[in-house]
């Protein structure tokens, strides 16, 4: 269609041109792309006129022009080239892709050219995502992609989501996660891993109030806008098949555990444990001989298989995107299949009339995970593999260390480990599976009332059904322990149904005056309704090796269930004024009414204003080297409404007395309870130099969160309760830098580098009565006015007393003492949050090959290394294996001060616990990591044409291939310390305690388009 239209246009234009001018000559030539391939439908226009032609299918054109005329050759996505008509009648032009082509950014109000924006928005496109080492969850893929967006994987568990902190820590007790909006509908952050990353067209991160205030009470932590792929009109169906296989392995420790001989030696030195009790050389040899590597025994190499199929296309009135995919990840823990997810998506738009478009986005995801216990004991394989002694064995062995087999010839699990319970029995006999079924969908009508006025109405639903099954197998080791050696078995099934639906209505009015004053008004309303139900049921008594549905259970045990709801109704208006592409003004107001807020604070108003000045579009601006220069400033408010559905109410709940319902107070609330308020302001400058080969931006932000949700204790005499109030305040500020440079652009070998850096600072400025505050998520940290949020609060270690080997500490007055008790103090400037983080990447392309590498780094954060406290436990628990450095302890005569304290031993018992929590185990978390490395090859078109393919790409990728962490012993990317210890509230990176390890991944993939 387009070609036909262009042809007619060409003819017409040619005709017009011919009759208009007499002394013209005919110029002809070919327009080609950077690879030398012809560019059909490229436009050739005589500058200063409307006369022009299009190239034909072979890129050829013919145009009449006078000598001295300037011809502009342009094509979408390529830089326009100008040529002056000289003596030659032939002008061949090769167009180069226009890297500086104004990026399209998705905002709350739709797509915008970057130079039309007034706010700080980071954009990640589908192509960007492809360059990132593959992950099943998009939030993980955002790491290092945008300045000011700190992404920390929760842990290495397959399918796990990430902690995202946009411009700092916004809250203490309410959530810190951003608002996720997927195709216009709000989505819980935990659902994000239900979206297939290959379905995503674009992710925008809205960082400042100017862009988030339109989300009012929900936008305070920033907004992540996810747009899924849609078909394009008049583009024939294209199918894509992508397949990837990967092998994963736990990242190698940067420390060494003792082997059997070393551990026995250590025990003998201390006169404790098995080693001390060995009577004969033969016994010793037998144990040394075993030399079990427990990481080998409990971990495995993981295998990931990912396959995706999609079809995308469109005709005149309809376009579509369809995909189906499956991801399977075995994980790295033996006996457990970690992850399996199937996704499907259908997005369709239909131009039913020229004035109305009907569309839908439908996503489906079904996910199953098998989880190991993430707790701080030997039920957790990660703790077990470091604790178990190398002179013990997984399977029962005889006196000659030969395997003992049972009657069926199977190996027998060794249940007599010194650390107690054998974790393999847990993994096989106490299994937990989680099942998530999610449907994300919306349907919309988009009316074009006049060319200036449009109206869109959209209904969206997000539904999750979650089920967890925990089965304690009858006859398993734990079952026999808890049921007095009688095989019983028990099953817990619990789950939830979570439905959010929303209705969004938007009226948009566009107008302009002489194309100089461009104005857009948006008015919209939004209604959100969430309904959540949960249930649990437990049964006891199952047949050995038999089925495990609750119907089989001999006795019912316990039931539970709950339900909650919330609603939000909002009205918002936005105006966008663009003066001649030079000055842009944007203002937003939003009024939110929420069922979560107190009776007196049902409604809140949010506003923002921002402006941008495109200096480069000014007539007076005439610096050749600077192609882009724009200044931005913004200020505004937004809120955080993650306060619990009924927190504002005083409630009475039920328990039972003698089998009858008893009414008791459940919660005390204040009718004045409202959202946490963010006021932020920021300024930014964006620039492009040397034909936009060098592009960058600098942003400064200052974000004050006031009315922080804190619990205020009331006098015991009134009943000993606490009431949540808006009582605290905190300031986050930072500087963000982004820079990308095309070092080689117009050559066959292309090379670009880019990077971003984020400098960050935080201060708590107000707390209840300005008292120190420990929240449920503070284990080794505290909140104090004037300090950084979650600053460490522990005893300061003063090294080893060279005279007697005692561990020494500073007391609160700064004196040295051997008694660590009660000397905890706040460590100013030491918190789990990085002062600086960022990433840099480089991309090389040569012919069909491309190579990209992406590094992530952070510095300035501290991690409490609880694992090291256990691995260097100073003889306090002789039965757990130790790191090799444990040998480096003080002995009489030691003069070297760089030693560990004198350990508890058969002959020595220190006055105070030497292995107590102190800064001895607090380590800087600085690291740099090669997050991804990818080598790809696109088969040239001459081959793909022969195969009747549109494109074929093969690639090999590596994830987390190299890490440098100078201070921290262990993997420095710490999110969750211990999943079950920190249930509900986590200060990411506060301490490490045997959560699922990070893996390094090697992948090979192939993408075929046809």
């Amino acid at each position, binding site marked *: 269609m387009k070609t036909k239209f262009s042809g007619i246009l060409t003819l017409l234009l040619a005709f017009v041109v011919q009759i208009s001018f007499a002394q013209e000559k005919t110029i002809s030539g070919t327009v080609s792309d950077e690879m030398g391939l012809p560019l059909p439908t490229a436009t050739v226009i005589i500058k200063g006129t409307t006369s022009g032609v299009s190239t034909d299918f072979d890129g050829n054109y013919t145009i009449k022009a006078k000598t001295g005329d300037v011809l502009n050759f342009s094509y979408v996505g390529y830089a326009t080239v100008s040529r002056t008509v000289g003596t030659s009648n032939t002008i061949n032009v090769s167009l180069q892709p226009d890297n500086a082509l104004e990026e399209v950014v998705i905002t709350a109000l739709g797509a915008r050219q970057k130079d039309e924006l007034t706010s700080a928005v980071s954009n990640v496109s589908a192509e960007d995502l492809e360059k990132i080492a593959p992950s099943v969850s998009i939030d993980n893929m955002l790491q290092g992609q945008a300045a000011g967006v700190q992404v920390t994987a929760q842990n290495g568990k397959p399918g796990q989501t990430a902690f995202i902190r946009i411009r700092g820590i916004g809250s203490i007790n309410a959530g810190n996660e951003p608002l996720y909006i997927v195709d216009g509908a709000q989505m819980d952050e935990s659902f994000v891993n239900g979206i297939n990353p290959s379905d995503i067209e674009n992710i925008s991160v809205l960082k400042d109030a100017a862009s988030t205030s339109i989300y009012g009470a929900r936008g305070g932590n920033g907004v992540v806008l996810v747009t899924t792929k849609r078909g394009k009109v008049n583009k024939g169906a294209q199918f894509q098949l992508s397949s990837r296989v990967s092998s994963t392995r736990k990242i190698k420790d940067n420390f060494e555990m003792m082997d059997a001989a070393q551990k026995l030696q250590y025990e003998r030195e201390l006169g404790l444990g098995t080693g001390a009790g060995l009577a004969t050389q033969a016994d010793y040899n037998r144990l040394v001989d075993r030399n079990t590597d427990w990481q080998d025994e409990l971990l495995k190499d993981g295998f990931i298989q990912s396959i995706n199929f999609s079809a995308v296309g469109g005709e005149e009135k309809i376009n579509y995107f369809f995909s189906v995919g499956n991801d399977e990840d075995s994980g790295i823990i033996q006996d457990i299949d970690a992850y399996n997810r199937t996704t499907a998506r259908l997005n369709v738009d239909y131009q039913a009339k020229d004035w109305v478009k009907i569309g839908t986005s439908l996503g489906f995801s079904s996910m199953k995970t098998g989880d190991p216990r993430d707790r701080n004991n030997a039920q957790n394989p990660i703790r077990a593999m470091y604790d178990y002694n190398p002179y013990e064995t997984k399977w029962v062995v005889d006196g000659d260390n030969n395997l003992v087999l049972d009657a069926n010839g199977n190996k027998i699990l060794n249940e007599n480990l010194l650390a107690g319970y054998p974790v393999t029995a847990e993994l096989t006999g106490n299994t937990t599976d989680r099942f998530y079924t999610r449907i994300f969908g919306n349907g919309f009508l988009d009316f074009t009332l006049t060319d200036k006025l449009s109206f869109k109405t959209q209904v969206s639903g997000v539904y999750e059904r979650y089920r967890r099954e925990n089965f304690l197998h009858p006859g398993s080791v734990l079952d026999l322990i808890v049921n007095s050696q009688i095989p019983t078995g028990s099953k817990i099934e619990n789950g939830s149904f979570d439905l959010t639906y929303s209705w969004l*209505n938007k009226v948009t009015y566009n107008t302009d005056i002489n194309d100089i004053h461009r104005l857009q008004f948006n008015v919209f*309303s939004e209604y959100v309704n969430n309904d959540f139900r949960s249930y649990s049921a437990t049964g006891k008594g199952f047949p050995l090796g038999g089925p495990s549905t609750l119907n089989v259970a001999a006795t019912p045990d316990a039931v539970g269930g709950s339900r909650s709801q*919330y609603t939000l*109704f909002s009205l918002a208006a936005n105006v966008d004024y663009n003066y001649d592409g030079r000055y842009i003004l944007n203002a937003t107001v939003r009024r939110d009414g929420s*069922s979560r807020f107190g009776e007196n604070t049902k409604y809140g108003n949010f506003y923002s204003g921002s402006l941008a000045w495109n200096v480069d579009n000014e007539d007076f601006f005439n610096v050749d080297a600077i192609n882009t220069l724009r200044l931005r400033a913004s200020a505004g408010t937004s809120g955080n409404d993650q306060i619990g559905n009924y927190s504002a109410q005083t409630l009475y709940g039920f328990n039972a007395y003698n089998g009858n*319902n008893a009414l008791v107070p459940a919660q005390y609330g204040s009718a004045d309870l409202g959202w946490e308020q963010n006021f932020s302001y920021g300024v930014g400058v964006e620039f492009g130099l040397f034909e936009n080969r060098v592009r960058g931006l600098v942003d400064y932000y200052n974000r004050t969160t006031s009315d922080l949700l804190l619990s205020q204790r009331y006098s015991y005499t009134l009943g000993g309760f606490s009431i949540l109030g808006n009582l605290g305040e905190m300031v986050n500020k930072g500087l963000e830098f982004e820079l990308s440079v095309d070092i080689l652009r117009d050559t066959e070998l292309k090379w670009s580098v880019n990077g971003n850096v984020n400098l960050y600072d935080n201060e708590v400025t107000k707390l209840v009565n300005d008292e120190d505050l420990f929240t449920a998520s503070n284990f080794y940290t505290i909140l104090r006015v004037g300090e950084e949020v979650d600053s460490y609060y522990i005893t300061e270690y003063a090294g080893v007393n060279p005279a007697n080997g005692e561990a020494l500490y500073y007391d609160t007055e700064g004196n040295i003492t051997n008694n660590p008790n009660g000397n905890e103090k706040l460590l100013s400037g030491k918190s789990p949050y990085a002062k600086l983080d960022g990433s840099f990447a480089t991309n090389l392309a040569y012919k069909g090959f491309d190579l990209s590498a992406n590094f992530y780094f952070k510095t300035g954060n501290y991690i409490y290394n609880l694992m090291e406290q256990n691995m260097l436990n100073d003889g306090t628990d002789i039965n757990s294996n130790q790191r090799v450095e444990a040998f480096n302890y003080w002995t009489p005569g030691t003069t070297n001060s760089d030693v560990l304290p004198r350990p508890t031993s058969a002959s020595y018992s220190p006055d105070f616990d030497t292995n107590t929590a102190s800064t001895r185990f607090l380590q800087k978390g600085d690291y740099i990591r090669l997050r991804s490395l990818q080598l790809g090859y696109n088969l040239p078109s001459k081959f793909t044409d022969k195969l009747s393919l549109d494109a074929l790409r093969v690639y090999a990728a590596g994830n987390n291939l190299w890490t440098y962490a100078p201070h921290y012993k262990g993997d420095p990317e710490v999110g969750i310390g211990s999943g079950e210890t920190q249930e509900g509230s986590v200060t990411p990176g506060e301490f490490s305690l045997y959560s699922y390890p990070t893996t390094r991944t090697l992948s090979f993939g192939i993408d075929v388009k046809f």
Partner: protein
Amino acid sequence: MKKYLYISIFAIGALFSSCDDNLDKTPFSSVGENDALTSEIAFENATLGLYTLAISPSYYGEEMMSFPDVISDNLIFSAEGRGTQKAYHEWQFNENITKGGFMAQAYAVVRHANFILDNIDNIPQTPARDHIQAQALAMRALSHFNITNTFSKIPTQDAGALSSLGMPYVTSSDILQEPGSRGTVEAIYNGIINDLETAKNLVGADDIIKINKNAINGLLSRVYLYRGMYAEAAAAADDVTASVATFGNFPGVWDDSSDDGVLFKLKNLDADTGVSVNTPYSQTVSSGVRSEYVVDFDLFNLYGGTDIRKATYVETSAYNGKNYNHVAKHMESSINLGSGVVDIKVIRMAEVMLNKAEALAMPGPAQDEAAALAALDAVRSQRYSSFVSGNETGQPLLDAIALERRLELAFEGHRFYDIKRSGEGINRSGAGQYADGTGLATLFTTLPAGDCKFQLPIPKTEMDVNPNMEQNPCYN
């Protein structure tokens, strides 16, 4: 063009479609305070709530039934335990080591009683409503009584006790009210007595798992005794229509197979509250009973061979190869599977008879030694397999009553208050923790009479938020 009109109307309608009603959401598992008390049934349920709040481990469930024994002379610290309440046992009280949780929970009962009383006019006056009101008043009085005896002086403790610092007597459920100041011991006792006397005239049906007439009269006899109003104490005791648990039924009282002599108990079931009353004393593990505290060796020897209480209250058994005299009073239930999940006996007839005996044996206008001896013998005759009255008079009679009280009410949360109100000091035997009295003796054997530590400190957490609160001397 019409369709544009329709669409426009639709658009405008859609934009403003939501109404405010949708923004008022009430929870599904609980009710708002304005909807909580709207019917007699709701009041009944709220009244039951008083008892479940009282069963909380920080109140009667664990604390009230253990710490008055832990900080006095009935128990010896066992090093094999988990070290719970050790600082209390050693009288290391300060603003952070005090019974803050107990204070909070006792006042939570007060607040809940006030919530019922403040709203009582939501339903018309009926005998059922009177009974509800009586329960709320009595539970409010009982909690104030327990609080003031812990943090303030007891009236008979010394000459200045009545006018010394009391505790706030709270009579409103308003959560935003200005927290009260301490007032005097006399004032809080007046409040307690007033509430109990009012309740006595309102109380209805007899049911020992709720406040009932006998319970109120029994509690009054205790309160008047503590207050030093001996005639009233004896009279209140006389108003109780029950008898002391018989020798035969006595062991069954403790595993809840018998209610003989129980005037008021908190019903503690696995499926409801499920609190292990025994937790502060011991836990039973595969290798035996692991005690936190064991029976003081002197007290153990005070239980004679013919005393039914010896076998009922004490279990001598081995843990880690050593014999201990474990507290067995709260260990076994005939109803619940949960270990230590037993009903909490708040007041029993035996105590009422001992209250009466003491009140009548004290020198003064109410003194009637014969009646006192009769009351004492009513208890003693049901505790010894072969009982012959000692026929004591004078000081020996008072001593015999005190001894019997210690023996009868041991490990039930009385001992500290009984020593305190007599104005005496705490004197521990100094014996070791093993069954034969050997082992590690405590370094903390004596808290002299008149020591300011008899009044526990007001918690720092309370001092921080209540500007009207005043700290006890000793802890400033």
